[in-house]
């Protein structure tokens, strides 16, 4: 008591019995911050739902009234602006997206896996840190820049090297998209490798296994779920990418026979045509139906990837 007399306010701050009933400033700050971060957290769900509802609302008219499921999925004729008999077949567009994404994965998977193994298992100290920063920097390059590279650099190179009339094709877009997806996949794969505890490496190394044997026999099998998740996220990225694909594919409705054929992707179709449609019209709604399809596919791929990655954490 003598102390509280000497320091005025000490009783107030430390509180007698009365302080337990009084909500002070800190209490309100805490509540306010809680409410704020709750709103931020919940907004992710609200936005995803909101976007899905919007896309679905805009496209549902087409699905209900105009769409012939067989024609839509199984014919390659996309002539939405034909005044008399517009045709909405997305087979060629799906083929375009699938071929470009597939080729992109052929480029990106070995590339990013190799990079991740080097960074996680072989590089040390400064090299590793520098590479990690650079890889993350690569992931931040805007897709229009990649598209520009496809248009200005890859296009003439492909024409020159392969002696084909047009260099905007599956090969061009596949390589561009592969290089685009590689940094993200590298980053995720590297995380998966780093999640394998060092004691496994030490145990195998103590037995006389070389670095590569340790990686190949112990680390890769232990990290395989995380690696698979990374690949799937890359697939999702490839599927949803628009600008680079629009610029590098040649944007021609076509089921490709070879990697030198021009194609058109689902995403690029929406980007290129939506501005010229009548809002609420048939063409407009058809584009939104494609949007629904893309949404469902990317959502499924990402969800699967997420579940697979979570799978390892538990096992």
């Amino acid at each position, binding site marked *: 008591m003598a102390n509280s007399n000497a320091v005025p306010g000490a009783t107030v701050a430390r509180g007698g019995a009365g302080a337990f009933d009084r909500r002070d400033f800190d209490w309100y700050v805490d509540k306010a911050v809680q409410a704020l971060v709750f709103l931020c957290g919940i907004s992710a769900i609200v936005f995803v739902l909101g976007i899905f509802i919007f896309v679905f609302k805009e496209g549902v008219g087409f699905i209900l009234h105009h769409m012939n499921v067989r024609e839509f999925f199984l014919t390659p004729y996309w002539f939405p602006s034909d005044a008399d008999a517009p045709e909405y077949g997305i087979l060629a567009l799906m083929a375009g997206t699938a071929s470009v994404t597939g080729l992109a994965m052929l480029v990106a998977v070995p590339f990013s896996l190799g990079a991740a193994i080097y960074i996680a298992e072989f590089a*040390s100290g400064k090299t590793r840190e520098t590479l990690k920063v650079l890889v993350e920097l690569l992931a931040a390059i805007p897709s229009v820049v990649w598209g520009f590279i496809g248009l200005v650099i890859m296009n003439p190179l492909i024409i020159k090297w392969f002696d084909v009339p047009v260099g905007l094709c599956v090969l061009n877009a596949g390589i561009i998209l592969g290089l685009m997806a590689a940094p993200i996949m590298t980053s995720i794969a590297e995380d998966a490798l780093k999640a*394998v505890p060092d*004691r*496994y490496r*030490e*145990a*195998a*190394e*103590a*037995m*006389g*296994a*070389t670095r590569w*044997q340790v990686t190949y*026999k*112990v680390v890769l*099998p*232990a990290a395989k779920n995380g690696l698979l998740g990374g690949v799937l996220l890359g697939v999702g990225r490839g599927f949803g990418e628009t600008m680079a694909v629009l610029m590098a594919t040649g944007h021609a409705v076509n089921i490709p026979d070879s990697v030198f054929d021009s194609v058109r992707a689902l995403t690029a179709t929406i980007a290129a045509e939506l501005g010229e449609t009548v809002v609420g019209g048939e063409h407009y709604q058809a584009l939104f139906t494609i949007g629904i399809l893309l949404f469902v596919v990317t959502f499924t791929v990402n969800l699967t990837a997420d579940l697979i990655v979570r799978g390892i954490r538990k096992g």
Partner: protein
Amino acid sequence: MVSQSALGRVAVAAQEDAAAAAPRTKLAVKNLTISYGKALALKDVSLEIREHEIFGIIGPANAGKTSFLKAVNRMDMFTTGMRVAGEIHFNGLDTRHLKNVYALRSRIGVVFPLPVGLPMTVYDNVALSPRLRGIKEKAELDVIVQRCLTRAALWDEVKDRLNALGSLLSGGQQQRLTIARALSQEPDLLMLDEFSIAVDPVTTMRIEDVLKELRKEVTIILVTNLVQQARRLADRTAFFLNSECVEIGVTEDLFTGPVKDRRTRDYVEGRFG
């Protein structure tokens, strides 16, 4: 496999002529000093370990025992900041200047204090080292796996679930799995680092019996916290204390012989630490 074991045997044969009667030296350590940055882990240790003996190393925590083992099988390469000075000769070969440390490590089996079941099946855990040596034949691998698991006193418990994940066995089982894996290397030198920490007393005794048997084939370095374990098993024992090798001698002398260094007797009789 052939080339590696041949390499070891050639070195052994060379020594065979040199000293026919006297016990051959398996590991010769001269002026070994180990440091991590500024911290000294081991100071100027010199000792010789003879073929087919069980060499005990006792001492409290932070005495430098584990660092000693790491230096022997060149794990220092991958331990950042670990600096090793001095000489270590294994079968007469200078291990500090080897071109292929992997071949060296494959001849030295290590059992870590905390069990490490690799995240693969029990079978694959034990078959890993033979496979690295190039053995592919299933029948041959089967024999090796069964022999090593039996020797590590684990076979009866896992013979019905060789396809279970090694990392999901219980702690004691994982430790014996680690021992089986070390044996599967057909090592020249077996180093056990406080292997009984995670194993129950009954199993510990079984493994100790196995070690006594194994002495006929391999040289064993037994690092242990349990003074009595060293007394039961080790032919000779070194006492490490505060980065220093205080005393080396025939194990029983450390307990009952004339006192050479007061600290050793105090430690083995449990009067400090």
